[in-house]
């Protein structure tokens, strides 16, 4: 099919305009962002100073897999992240159902209370837990009175990390489930009830299958955000070497084991990107993942 030159040139100028609009941002990302990611990769296979074999090495990866504490750290990360997912499910699913049900009276207030933390200073809130759990607090005194032992309370325990992470990541679960519940209409449950289903079987056979993608993508998002988190672990955690994210932070900024930290970071990157891709696939609507969003909040 022949295309008039005038049309071709107008298409060309449209393309030029579009790329011009994208140019500054693309340039920034290519240099600072992708450049940085390449640096991490390079760092992770860079030959350690002192060894002059030249070229690349997998020594740092061997170091990661070979080191004794890493097994324990990964295990603890998995345990804490799964516990966080469980906590978010327990509280998040009822909240998501409540704010999407038409009859809810306090919808606005519940929505604001549970979802506004997406926007509210994560680090600021962590100090709330420190005040509540730390030595001298009601909870610490109560625990000492009940069980005896050290007066440091819950602070610096795994329980504190799990509570902190659940508090941080609850909104993601709520958003994900609430969005998937947009596909559930209350008339459906009325229809099911009129056909003789019990409320429980309506929940299990009608509603659950519909919101399941939301639950799954919420779980994946919460899981990956908690594995990469280090701020909560650093402030509420115990010995320090609790979670993978914190381990990387320590390697890079405290122990100066750049290669090992970078290798660990690359492994984490691969796992998390895979989980996120899965979450995007499962998420009912693509735009929900924008709210993977506030992942920044304290990761």
């Amino acid at each position: 099919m022949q295309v008039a030159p005038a049309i071709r040139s107008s298409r060309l100028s449209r393309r030029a305009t579009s790329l011009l609009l994208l140019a500054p941002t693309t340039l920034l990302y290519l240099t600072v962002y992708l450049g940085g990611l390449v640096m991490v990769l390079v760092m992770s296979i860079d030959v350690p100073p002192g060894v002059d074999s030249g070229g690349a090495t997998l020594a740092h990866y061997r170091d990661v897999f070979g080191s004794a504490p890493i097994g324990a750290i990964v295990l603890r990360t998995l345990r804490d992240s799964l516990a966080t997912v469980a906590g978010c499910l327990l509280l998040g699913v009822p909240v998501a159902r409540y704010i999407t049900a038409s009859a809810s009276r306090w919808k606005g207030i519940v929505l604001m209370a549970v979802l506004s933390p997406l926007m509210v200073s994560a680090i600021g809130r962590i100090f709330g837990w420190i005040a509540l759990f730390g030595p001298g607090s009601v909870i610490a005194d109560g625990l000492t009175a009940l069980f005896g032992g050290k007066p440091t309370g819950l602070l610096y325990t795994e329980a504190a990390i799990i509570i902190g992470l659940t508090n941080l990541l609850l909104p993601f679960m709520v958003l994900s489930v609430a969005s998937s519940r947009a596909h559930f209409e209350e008339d459906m449950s009325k229809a099911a009830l009129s056909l003789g289903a019990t409320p429980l079987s309506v929940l299990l056979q009608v509603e659950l299958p519909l919101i399941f993608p939301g639950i799954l993508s919420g779980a994946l998002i919460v899981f990956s955000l908690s594995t990469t988190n280090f701020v909560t672990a650093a402030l509420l955690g115990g010995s320090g070497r609790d979670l993978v994210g914190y381990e990387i932070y320590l390697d890079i900024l405290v122990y100066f084991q750049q290669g090992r930290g970078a290798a660990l970071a690359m492994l984490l990157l691969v796992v998390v990107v895979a989980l996120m891709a899965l979450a995007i696939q499962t998420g009912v609507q693509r735009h929900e993942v924008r709210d993977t969003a506030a992942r920044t909040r304290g990761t």
Partner: protein
Amino acid sequence: MSETVAAGGPPEQEAFLQLRDVAKNLGGNPVLAGVSLDVFEGDLLGLLGPSGSGKTTLLNIIGGFTDLDAGSVRIAGQDLTALPPHRRDIGITFQKYALFPHLTVFDNIGFGLRQRKVAAPELRQRVGEMLAVLGLTGLAGRYPRSLSGGEQQRVALARALAVRPRLMLLDEPLANLDAALRQRVRFEIREILRSTGVTSIFVTHDQDEAFALCDRVAVLRGGRIQQIGTPAELIYQPANAFVARFIGSPNVFEASVQHYDAQTQSIRFVRDRFTGAACVRAPLTPGTRVEVFVRPDEVVIARADDVQPAKFRVKDWVHLVSGREAWIEGPITLRARLPSEATHLERGAAVIPSWRPERAHAFAIEPAPPAAATT
């Protein structure tokens, strides 16, 4: 496919808007397959077609929002292909109005004048004129979302007309109005377009609307123009089976040709033991399968007397605003419209249907092309 069909005006006059073999593929489908069309200065042409026939796409091409794949669009002899939309000077009203939500009614109407750097006093005066003409004077300060559908529609019209474009394109301007309002606004639009004398194309899928408003109507289907003509031509001389079926919701039935009369260009057909007459556009040999189209208001029914073998019986009555419709059943089922005061025929009564031959149209049924298997 490139034969040009003139819409109005003496043929020697150069058409104001000329489309030649306009073709457009979207997503692999030929949405427009070689449309050629002439519209003469001052004309109001209706563009009628079922949903998805390519009407909006055609307007988008004329307006410059969609590139064409082949063919050309000319206005007053000037080729528009390379002209961007904002330099075409074509007024458009959109299917869903597309008013600027962030501007008041006044600023919506003044938008085009502002682009043309019209000075404030003149702008105020011209917007004021448009407000008055369209009966919107009290609404100047309001925002579009606070207007009713009919008011929004008039703002859209005022906005397009305010710049005095050389061509107006109206895409189903009445589609979102309720029935009563549609009737009224239909004539308002006709009056306004007439009084401004602007050349216009009025898109609709409602034939009543097209016939009420336009001098000439082009019927579009599957990206091809089927026929262009006055309403009467479309009704009484449909060019093909599609137009015959599309206009006036006729009775449709299959039959076979018994006899062709070259003098009157008509046939006698037979269907089971029922025979009738219909006019044709081309000679047909006896035995050809045809589709016959006859509108209910052309069908006359009479009570069958004892001599005639009654082939039809009244099955049911339907009351319409314009009269009553009888469903009669025989070898075929027919609808026949009767004025309300006509004799009552009880259900089950034996009747004979008939019509004037020139009011029924028969077209040979073309064997389905083998390629159709792919669609």
